[in-house]
């Protein structure tokens, strides 16, 4: 039992679809109804102009055999479909209602006529159907015997065809184009100028940057003149509008299908509309966000649908606007990035006004890769250039433009046979083999093994790239799993990332893990990448790895709002700073509380408020406090020798120095430091990961303390250090911890696991020979620090995520509700929430 396919619209794409289906539907699964509005079978609309050079409408008909001759096809000529019911799965025509199993909308476009007064006068035509050209011809022939003039509105492809047609009929034609050049969609200014010279040379007048204002009728009520916006009047016995097309989407619109912003039936990459088994193809389809007014993409869509109807999963691969045509005997070709819109693209131009030739190639910023081009007057090299889009030209681009253009071979996308090092004649395949078969693990080994890059060295970046790609494909397998996705501990993963140089998660998990990752391994990789200094935490694919706190750089609270903590180094703050924070809290209605880390926490900030809050804070001189990160939080201090009667060192100054040094350092867990100015220990430094206590001779350093669930006192690590030694020792301790601790392992258990003596040997005696490396890593961190919030405020891409709802950026979560307590607001409890309708406090945003 065969299924019923209904095709609405009998144009070229519909024809292609049916022809392909008949050909490939070997099991005769489909019975086809074709509804054509025009009273003729599908014809070659692209060749419409050839009607004027002697092709009859019958000559234009498509296909060797009449579709209707096939018993599987019923053609309904003149059968305009007036309604589509996607629920009942029927279409209606004047003749009745037809059911279908699958439907293809191929209704094409209609010619668009701009809203110009008089555009409906007799003598004004469009240029779309056989009927249109027959009417145009009859109109002109009936008036022959006197010199005729005509105006074509629109200097695009169709307009020039129409001008050619009028020219062929002996009408003196003027082309009026709104843009500053002919064929503005295909050619640039230089090409447009060349085209204009050639066309004017044929006797067709051209007016660019000209808008049509009105058509005026003559004594007989027929069109007699066209008036331009600047007041100029052009006599015209005939006017042809070639001002673009509009998709015929009215049927789909009424059926409730999704319609694109600029018209057209929205379809997915399989040409399917939102309703199963209802497709749209050709000019009526809005695919990948746009409609296509070219038959090539339409035919591709037809093939996609045929594949889908037969159970396949073909998708529309995209199409480009490359065109080559002959207009009025003039060759014009345009392909790829013809307008050099690619960043850094270069243009190589050859122009010969005398010969009427303009050629331009668009190449990549290194002048090697062909990106596009425009050819006017001589398009003979189009065939050889068009397939090379995206490939290296392999020789000076000029060679392709000169009249005798000699084509060099394409180097391609580095197949194994491609020569990478031309000095020593080494191919890409040889380099790959050096890694996979010869066991080379770095660039040096590959150079020694293959001699690639050992002469002039210009190919080394390419060689390195090849080597790295091969290395990335391999990987070390060890156990000690972080989670189900990685069989490594955090420390092992740190080494892998550090050594391989992999800098994004998808590569890391593809080469060293399984699946998609999870909320355990993703933040770990994010932390490792941050510790390695890979830039902003939201850069590249790192954003997807971050816990929401790191992602929005604030601390998630129980109602889904966030808290904000500006950095207050060592707890030292000016009155102006206090006022600024207080004013921000007041203006945004934030609950404020002093933290245990000697700073101020601002609660109740909504996601979409964070940038505005931080703009104010940054302007007031504050920066991120990293309260949200597994990173340095605070360096707590007592007031020290500057004020305190008992202080022996400037503990505040030291704490400020340490906090500014380690701010932003990402670690396996949060890090807290403390500095006390004397042995009374008012800063509670021994309750910190790193505690510094002043002595008469300098500083004592304690490590491995914390509060929390399992409180620990830090243990003495080194005594009476001078400031320089103190800082260097803390540098090494922190960096060694960052590199070797497990996920969420604070310094206390880490010190326990490694042994305090062993850590002393590594850090104070350099037993592993890594101190220089640790020092360099910390120097790199200190040198590359920048405030995450200031960087985010300066980056519109990063700011875009700070909305509660992407489709309503101004809106806030309507479920948030607050009550007032002790003079501030707090989230309403579940029972309180049922009593109140919305926020009780006016909150200024």
């Amino acid at each position: 039992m065969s299924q019923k396919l209904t095709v609405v619209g009998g144009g070229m794409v519909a024809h292609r679809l049916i022809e392909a289906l008949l050909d490939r539907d070997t099991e005769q699964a489909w019975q086809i109804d074709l509804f054509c509005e025009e009273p003729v079978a599908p014809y070659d609309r692209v060749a419409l102009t050839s009607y004027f050079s002697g092709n009859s409408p019958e000559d234009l008909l498509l296909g060797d055999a009449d579709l209707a001759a096939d018993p599987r096809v019923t053609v309904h000529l003149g059968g305009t479909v007036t309604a589509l019911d996607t629920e009942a799965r029927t279409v209606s025509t004047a003749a009745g209602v037809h059911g279908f199993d699958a439907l293809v909308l191929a209704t094409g476009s209609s010619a668009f006529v701009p809203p110009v007064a008089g555009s409906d006068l007799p003598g004004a035509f469009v240029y779309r159907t056989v009927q249109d050209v027959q009417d145009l011809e009859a109109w002109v022939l009936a008036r022959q015997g006197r010199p005729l003039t005509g105006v074509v509105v629109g200097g695009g492809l169709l307009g020039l065809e129409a001008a050619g047609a009028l020219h062929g009929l002996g009408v003196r034609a003027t082309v009026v184009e709104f843009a500053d050049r002919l064929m503005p969609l295909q050619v640039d200014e230089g090409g447009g100028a060349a085209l204009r010279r050639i066309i004017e040379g044929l006797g067709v007048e051209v007016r660019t940057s000209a808008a049509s204002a009105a058509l005026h009728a003559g004594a007989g009520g027929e069109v007699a003149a066209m008036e331009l916006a600047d007041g100029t009047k052009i006599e015209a016995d005939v006017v042809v509008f070639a001002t673009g097309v509009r998709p015929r989407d009215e049927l789909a619109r009424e059926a409730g299908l999704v319609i694109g912003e600029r018209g057209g039936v929205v379809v997915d990459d399989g040409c399917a509309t939102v309703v199963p088994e209802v497709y749209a193809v050709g000019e009526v389809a809005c695919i990948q966000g746009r409609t296509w007014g070219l038959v090539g993409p339409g035919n591709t869509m037809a093939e996609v649908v045929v594949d889908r109807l037969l159970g396949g999963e073909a998708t529309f691969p995209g199409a480009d606007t490359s065109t080559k045509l002959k207009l009025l005997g003039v060759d014009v070709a345009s392909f790829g990035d013809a307008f050099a819109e690619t960043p850094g693209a270069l243009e190589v131009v050859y122009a010969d006004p005398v010969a009427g030739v303009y050629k331009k190639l668009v190449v990549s910023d290194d002048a090697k890769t062909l990106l596009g081009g425009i050819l006017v007057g001589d398009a003979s090299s189009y065939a050889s250039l068009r397939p090379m889009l995206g490939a290296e030209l392999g020789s000076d681009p000029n060679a392709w433009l000169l009249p005798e253009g000699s084509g060099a071979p394409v180097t391609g996308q580095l197949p194994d046979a491609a020569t990478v090092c031309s000095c020593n004649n080494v191919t890409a395949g040889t380099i790959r083999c050096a890694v996979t078969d010869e066991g080379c693990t770095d660039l040096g080994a590959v150079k020694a093994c293959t001699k690639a890059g050992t002469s002039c060295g210009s190919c080394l970046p390419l060689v390195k790239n090849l080597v790295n790609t091969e290395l990335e494909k391999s990987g070390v397998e060890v156990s000690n799993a972080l989670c189900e996705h990685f069989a490594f501990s955090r420390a092992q993963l740190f080494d892998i990332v550090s050594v391989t140089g992999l800098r994004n998660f998808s590569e890391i998990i593809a080469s060293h893990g399984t699946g998609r990752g999870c909320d355990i391994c993703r933040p770990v990789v994010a932390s490792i990448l941050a510790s390695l200094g890979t830039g902003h935490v939201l850069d590249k694919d790192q954003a997807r790895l971050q816990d929401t706190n790191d992602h929005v750089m604030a601390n998630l609270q129980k109602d889904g709002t966030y808290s904000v903590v500006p950095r207050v180094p060592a707890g030292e703050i000016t009155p102006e700073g206090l006022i600024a924070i207080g004013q921000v809290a007041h203006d945004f209605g934030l609950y404020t509380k002093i933290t245990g880390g000697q700073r101020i926490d601002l609660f109740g900030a909504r996601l979409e408020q964070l940038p505005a809050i931080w703009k104010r804070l940054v302007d007031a001189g504050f920066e991120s406090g990293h309260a949200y990160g597994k990173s340095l939080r605070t360096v707590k201090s007592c007031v020290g020798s500057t004020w305190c009667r008992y202080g022996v060192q400037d503990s505040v100054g030291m704490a400020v120095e340490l906090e500014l040094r380690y701010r932003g350092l990402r670690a396996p867990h949060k890090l807290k430091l403390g500095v006390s100015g004397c042995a009374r220990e008012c800063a509670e430094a021994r309750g910190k990961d790193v505690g510094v206590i002043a002595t008469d001779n300098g500083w004592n350093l304690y490590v491995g303390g914390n509060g929390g669930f399992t409180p620990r006192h830090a243990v003495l690590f080194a005594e009476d250090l001078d400031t320089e030694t103190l800082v260097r020792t803390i540098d090494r301790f922190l960096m060694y911890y960052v590199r070797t601790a497990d996920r969420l392992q604070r310094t206390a258990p880490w010190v326990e696991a490694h042994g305090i003596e062993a850590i002393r040997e590594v850090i104070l005696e350099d037993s592993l020979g890594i101190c220089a490396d640790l020092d360099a890593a910390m120097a790199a961190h200190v040198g590359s620090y920048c405030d995450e919030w200031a960087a985010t405020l300066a980056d519109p891409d990063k700011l875009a995520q700070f909305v509660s709802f992407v489709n309503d950026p101004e809106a806030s979560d309507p479920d948030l509700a607050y009550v007032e307590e002790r003079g501030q607001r707090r989230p309403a409890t579940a029972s309180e929430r049922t009593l109140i309708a919305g926020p009780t406090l006016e909150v200024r945003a």
Partner: protein
Amino acid sequence: MTVRMGGGGWVSVCTKKQLIPERGVAVLVKDQQVALFRVTNAEGEEFVYAVGHRDPFADANVIARGIVGSVGQGEDQRDTVASPMYKHVFDLRTGECLTDPSGRLPVYRTWIAGGVVYVHPEPVDVPALVAS
């Protein structure tokens, strides 16, 4: 089984470009808060999951801010999101909570065309989805 449905009711919510791969966003769909997640499967096919934005355990609208991940491998791999609040892990396709079966998220149909993401405001019948 093909689910028969009319073309009506679909709401365009954002462009695909507004969805950072494997990072959620929340949208309002006729007064419902819906979390969208753009992911690519092993075959390179890209699609968009839509589940309720409300974490049933936390009673807060935060699901879109969770971390995307997976549980299981190969044929059994299920795409997940972990709520940022108490780290409950939900199956993005069915809305089931894999760490505490007492809660679940509603699931919505999505459709992408022309770079635009559409969501149907009527939640999917999950038992039928799981059976399919």
